[in-house]
């Protein structure tokens, strides 16, 4: 992750995090981070179709994925699930609660909700439950596999 960010020359800040407080709501509450400045990375997996497809979705913690109207169509399948802990680890090398959208396998599409791009800076998972990553979301415009998607998420 650090190598990717250094290679892109994109400024970032690493924040230490108690692993037991890594889940977004608890993290924001404990560390005084505005939930509107915190983004989750949700790995979704197709449950139908000939081959399993995955996508990493980045959305503000104040929003939820619009699976029925957007995600399913983009993935081109009828049924979708939250990727299991085992799938998440196998695909990303990371555990749920610590997934960062930085340095994911190149074959894994990253869909970023438009709202994320409107923030000055966001806090993301840092690759494990000990670390969070703070950076300007303009980074996603520079990641080849990332796509900014309007309406990917809706407010809770």
């Amino acid at each position, binding site marked *: 992750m650090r190598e990717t960010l250094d290679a892109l020359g994109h400024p970032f800040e690493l924040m230490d995090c108690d692993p037991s407080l890594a889940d977004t709501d608890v993290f924001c509450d404990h560390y005084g981070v505005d939930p509107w400045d915190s983004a989750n990375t949700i790995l979704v997996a197709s449950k139908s179709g000939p081959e399993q497809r995955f996508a990493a979705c980045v959305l503000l913690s104040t929003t*939820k*994925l*619009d*699976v*029925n*109207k957007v*995600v*399913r169509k983009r993935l081109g399948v*009828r*049924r*979708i*699930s*939250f990727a299991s802990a085992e799938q998440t680890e196998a695909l990303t090398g990371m555990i749920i609660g610590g997934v960062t959208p930085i340095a994911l396998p190149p074959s894994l599409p990253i869909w970023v909700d438009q709202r994320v791009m409107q923030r000055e800076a966001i806090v993301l998972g840092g690759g494990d439950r000990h670390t969070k990553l703070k950076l300007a979301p303009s980074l996603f415009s520079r990641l080849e596999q990332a796509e900014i998607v309007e309406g990917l998420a809706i407010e*809770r």
Partner: protein
Amino acid sequence: MSAPATSLDTESDSIAARLLRSRRTIHDFKPEPAPREKLLAAIDLARWAPNHHATEPWHFYLLGPETAIGIAELNAELVEAKSGPEAAAAKLERWSAMPGWLVVTCDKSDDDLREREDYAACACAIHNLMLYLWDEGIGVKWTTGAVIRDPRFYDLIWADPEVEEVVGLLWYGYAEEVPMIRRKEVDEILVSLP
């Protein structure tokens, strides 16, 4: 005349008979959640339900806390529209305390008979699941309230209402209390033919 459900419970009952007689719908649960492994084992057994044409029409959605609270809030919204804010607040509090959430859906079909048979198969699958969990000391409440037919419910569980129908929302966990109920006697429900 009805009798308590356990009135025929005898020492000679098989394990299956004891399970069938003793399982009850659990309305109140202890706060601690049941292990996920038990749920996965129950789903594994659920899929062995009788199923005409082996269509395997069932799908199981194991809900996390974010989805569960979303459903509790949607239900409260429906209750408020019908019965007012106090009833809604009470429902929200009750639903928010449910320790485990599972939704079972059934594939839709253009063939009415197949859809009916598939629904029946899903009901049998749910019963399989409930019996296994009961044997493991875990109770279930199968609810079919209005919330499961609300289009927003499908959005919350990531299910496509054009291809699946919700059969039930199941809460599971360790029983706070096991209710006693009565059933009709066999004579009352049996018709014998020549």
